[in-house]
């Protein structure tokens, strides 16, 4: 802007158009901020300019880009909202023209001290998006010696409005790219997690077994395990790591490896309670992560039909009786693992009658919700198991997953869904 005269309407419109064209040509945030700064100095005919963005966590303005004969040291300065000229503008959501900063007690000298730049006059305007302050934009020392005037303020305010929208746009694009990268990482973690789950379920001739895990969009930490211990017994486990994302998926893989090694070391004398204490100590002392797991594990003797199990904070598995379709729950009386050093766990025993189904699942099954915020719930699950009791277990699990999807409708699946089902087919024949 010429400091000697007022712009004509035509000149103003032309300048605004130029600002719009330049601001819309960059979507990369740091490049855009530099462009806004150099454009500010050029259009407002100022010796220097600065742009501060609001750090919402600390409520401070942070120098993002500075131009002119200033120092990079300015980037270290954080101006609390309410302090200095810029802080006043951010707090009061009003522009300011200061003709002589030496006469204004609001002036914050720290920036000048850091940069050796001598500020004389300032024009400072808020940067706003949807009525929210995202920062401030200021030009310093109008060339030619005259102070900034109201015409400068009008044009600079329009420019700030356009700059704020461009910054928001660049931020959204950046967030979109990061989200895409994040989702790619999640997919990799998810496929690794799925690849180590058991896939074949043929361990003994007198049991039918089937398991499946359907991960949510943001990978969770469900997993299950089946291991043949010896000629009479098998080990089964289902668990849910609290939390989501790559962290939970990674923890899942570490824990599965730990569990496999621990179980395989004791094929004939596996103590599930002892295993759980080891997992708890491993998580607290070795992993030191701020996550916990709910876990249910059992040993099943295919000759005696005896179940020995421990439940550490996991939702209660179900036994559905072949004779009368009665539903029985396997109590949860232990505490989740990985959070507290002193825990109490209890071992229980039950027997499976011939034909009985043992149904292990994670809370993604019962706690999924539909658009009316209704949960699928335990009653629906129990009814489903009774209704589909005679199906092959592979068909039963697929049918349940379909039913859950149907129930949720357009609502996203927000948690992993995992199922591990066993049927006692009767007398063991080796």
């Amino acid at each position, binding site marked *: 802007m010429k400091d000697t005269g007022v712009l004509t309407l035509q000149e103003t419109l032309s300048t605004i158009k130029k600002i719009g064209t330049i601001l819309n040509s960059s979507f990369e945030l740091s490049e855009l901020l530099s462009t806004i700064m150099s454009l500010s100095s050029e259009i407002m005919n100022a010796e220097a300019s600065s742009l501060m963005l609001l750090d919402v966590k600390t409520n401070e303005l942070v120098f993002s880009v500075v131009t002119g004969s200033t120092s990079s040291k300015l980037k270290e300065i954080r101006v609390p909202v309410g302090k200095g000229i810029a802080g006043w503008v951010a707090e009061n959501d009003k522009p300011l023209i200061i003709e002589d900063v030496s006469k204004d007690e609001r002036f914050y000298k720290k920036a000048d001290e850091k940069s050796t730049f001598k500020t004389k006059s300032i024009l400072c305007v808020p940067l706003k998006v949807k009525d929210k302050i995202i920062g401030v934009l200021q030009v310093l020392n109008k060339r030619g010696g005259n102070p900034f005037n109201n015409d400068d303020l009008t044009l600079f305010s329009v420019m700030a409005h356009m700059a704020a929208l461009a910054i928001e746009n660049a931020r959204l694009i950046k967030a979109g790219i990061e989200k895409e990268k994040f989702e790619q990482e999640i997919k990799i973690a998810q496929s690794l997690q799925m690849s180590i789950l058991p896939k074949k379920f043929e361990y003994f001739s007198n049991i039918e077994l089937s398991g499946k895990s359907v991960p*949510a969009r*943001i990978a969770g930490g469900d997993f299950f395990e089946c291991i043949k211990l010896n000629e009479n017994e098998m080990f089964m486990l289902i668990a*849910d790591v*609290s*939390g*989501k994302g790559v962290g939970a998926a990674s923890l899942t893989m570490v824990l599965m490896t730990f569990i496999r090694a621990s179980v395989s070391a004791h094929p004939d004398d596996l103590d599930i309670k002892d295993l759980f204490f080891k997992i708890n100590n491993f998580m607290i002392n070795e992993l030191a992560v*701020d*996550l*916990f797991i*709910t876990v249910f594990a059992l040993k099943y003797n295919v000759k005696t039909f005896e179940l020995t199990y421990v439940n*550490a*904070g*996991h*939702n*209660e598995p179900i036994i559905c009786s072949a004779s009368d379709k009665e539903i029985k729950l396997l109590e*949860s*009386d*232990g*505490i*989740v693992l990985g*959070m*507290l050093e002193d*825990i*109490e766990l209890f071992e229980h025993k039950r027997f499976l009658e011939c034909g009985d189904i043992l149904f292990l699942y994670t*809370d993604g099954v019962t*706690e999924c919700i539909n658009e009316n*915020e209704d*949960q699928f719930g335990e009653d629906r699950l129990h009814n489903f198991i009774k209704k589909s009791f005679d199906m092959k277990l592979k068909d039963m699990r697929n049918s349940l997953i379909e039913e859950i999807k149907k129930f949720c409708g357009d609502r996203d699946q*927000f*948690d992993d869904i995992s199922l591990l089902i066993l049927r006692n087919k009767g007398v063991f024949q080796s």
Partner: protein
Amino acid sequence: MEVSSVLKEDKGVTIVSVNGRIDSYTYNIFENEVYTNIDIGQQKMILDFTDVSYISSQGLRTLVTALKKAKAQSGFIKLCGLNESVLKILKVSGLDKALAIFPDADTALNS
């Protein structure tokens, strides 16, 4: 979900009222409120769950982590107003044994 904190100055206790479901989509709002209270020195907290319909495993994790953080700074976390289904989730996880649970905010405040 909505969360708000009110400091009862005479008792030095902050009552955090939570409204809605604490699930995968909302737990970070709840977590942020509770952790911020601890960070600013309000580590004695009563979490009023009267209007909470559900809490996910992430929410439970926040409760236990907050309890640890608060205790490390001589504070406490008390829960109150739990409905039947939220109480059941806590019981199944076993965390009801680790957390102090009260019927309502007044009882928790005077305990």
